[in-house]
């Protein structure tokens, strides 16, 4: 990762509210075009981090650069180059979709506000309803409008706080697809979410926070760091082969469970052929071999529990 491609750089970013530490020495680098998922329990400091990085709240200590702009020195400049979807859509319910966007376009002093408004209303399927008061919109439509508002000024960095929270599955999918499309345009997206499926689908890397940053990595990396790599072998008949498998030098652990054998390996791509050969020699009738894919939920709960113990 070279310096010029780092869109978000946080160094020991800290925020206190009186005696309470909301965010504790957060250090982070996020590259251009990355979709960075920010996970953590309620009250872990996700929203405070977003507010600091988006120039809404000043950090108590530490520093950050967003798109090359010093957050502490010029927060107003940061606000003009980032887009933010807040936890609540926060739209003016009595005003139309058009006037909601026009207001924000004018605050950003866009050179061609009407073109931008039309572009995003059409992209998000709200063009036909542009003159309807927002109060008459469904939750999904409001969320889409709030996303349009965050994108009007074509920000390089986008902060999304719970973008699909409370949406029906269809609307949630539309929003997820749209986020994926934004990521393909090389925008840097900082996504706060409790939806672990969404995080796994969309994010290139994840960060887990509980006041301090607990772990950072790709979803696969986090799983491997915690559980190693495990393969599952489905047998036709139950056979107790765990002991024999453990004799192999590259097997870290093995466990039989009925017709299934769970084997942990450092490098399955390299060692699977030898393992299968050995099991066949031992008389195993193998039906399927697959990698045991831990859910992100398991990883998340494990990491949070670990943190709580400390």
């Amino acid at each position, binding site marked *: 990762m070279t310096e010029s491609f780092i869109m978000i750089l946080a160094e020991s970013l800290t925020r206190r*509210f009186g005696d309470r530490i909301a965010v504790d020495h957060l250090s982070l680098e996020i590259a251009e075009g990355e979709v960075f998922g920010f996970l953590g329990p309620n009250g872990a400091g996700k929203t405070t981090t977003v*507010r600091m990085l*988006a*120039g*809404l*709240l*000043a950090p108590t200590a530490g520093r950050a650069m967003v798109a090359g702009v010093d957050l502490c020195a010029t927060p*107003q400049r940061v*606000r*003009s180059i*980032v887009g*933010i979807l*807040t*936890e*609540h*859509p*926060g*739209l*003016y*319910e*009595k*005003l139309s979709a058009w*006037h909601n966007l026009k*207001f*924000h376009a*004018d*605050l*950003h*002093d866009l050179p061609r506000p009407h073109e931008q408004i039309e572009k995003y209303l059409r992209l998000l399927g709200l063009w036909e309803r542009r003159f309807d*008061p927002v109060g008459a919109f469904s939750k999904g439509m409001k969320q889409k409008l*709030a996303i349009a*508002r965050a994108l009007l000024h074509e920000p390089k960095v986008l902060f999304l706080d719970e973008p699909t929270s409370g949406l029906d599955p269809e609307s949630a999918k539309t929003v997820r697809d749209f986020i994926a499309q934004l990521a393909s345009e090389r925008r840097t997206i900082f996504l706060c979410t409790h939806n672990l499926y969404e995080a796994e689908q969309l994010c290139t890397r994840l960060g887990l926070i509980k006041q301090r940053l607990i772990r950072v990595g790709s979803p696969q990396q986090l799983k491997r760091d915690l559980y190693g790599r495990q393969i599952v072998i489905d047998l036709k008949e139950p056979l107790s082969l765990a002991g024999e498998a453990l004799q192999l030098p590259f097997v870290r652990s093995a466990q039989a469970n009925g017709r299934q054998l769970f084997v942990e390996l450092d490098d399955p791509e390299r060692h699977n052929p030898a393992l299968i050969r050995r099991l066949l020699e031992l008389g195993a009738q193998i039906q399927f071999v697959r990698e045991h894919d831990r859910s992100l939920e398991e990883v998340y709960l494990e990491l949070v529990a670990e943190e709580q113990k400390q």
Partner: protein
Amino acid sequence: MNKRVRVLMLKEWREALKSSKTIWIGTVALPALFLGFSVYLMLTFGDLNDADIENVRHFVGALFNFPLLYFMMFPMVIPISVAVSAIIGEKEQKSLEPLLATPLTTYELFLGKALASIVPAVGVTWVAFGLFGLFMKLLLPPQVVTLALGEFGTAWLLTIFLFTPLTSLLMAAASMMIATRVSDVRAAYQLSSFVMLPILLPAIFFATQQALTNVSFIVLLSGAILLFDLVLLRFAVKLFRREEILTRWR
């Protein structure tokens, strides 16, 4: 005027128009009622040719004391509704965070919202004053107009161009500050109305004494309001800090 302040002000007016017709009915109806009453008084003035000058002076005093009281009231009453709804509306709709995420500074936020309530108050007062003057010219005998301008001209001008903007600012700032601390519109209206009392009560007293057109009284009252304005603005600056808005406004 800064573009962002103007944009925010226009948004407040658009929202106020859509939110509650009563805001605008109140803004227009109060001065219209007053004007109607004043015109009625002017029409009953009658022919002065055979009246003596002392009677005229007495009648003119009565005719101009109470209108002046109304001109003092408009800038106090009108800003409350717009100022309160400008803050409580944002809180109810949870739209403050997206607003603070724009390049708008907190100073511009305060100024835009304050001006959104001050401008209609001052504007309506000035328009009502203009119409009042026009009706005076059209309906009253010339010697009465001359007498009125000679006796009360300075007091009127001070009221309109000094007292009105200062009072509007006071009421707008006070109402906005109250609205930041309460979540109920009615509670905000009631508390804001209390702020009017220390100004309104002496004004009513002097009006009943036919002494409201006293220049010293108006200058003194305006000076006191200016002092209050400065104190309130100091507090408002603290209340309108970004962090305060995000974490304390409920």
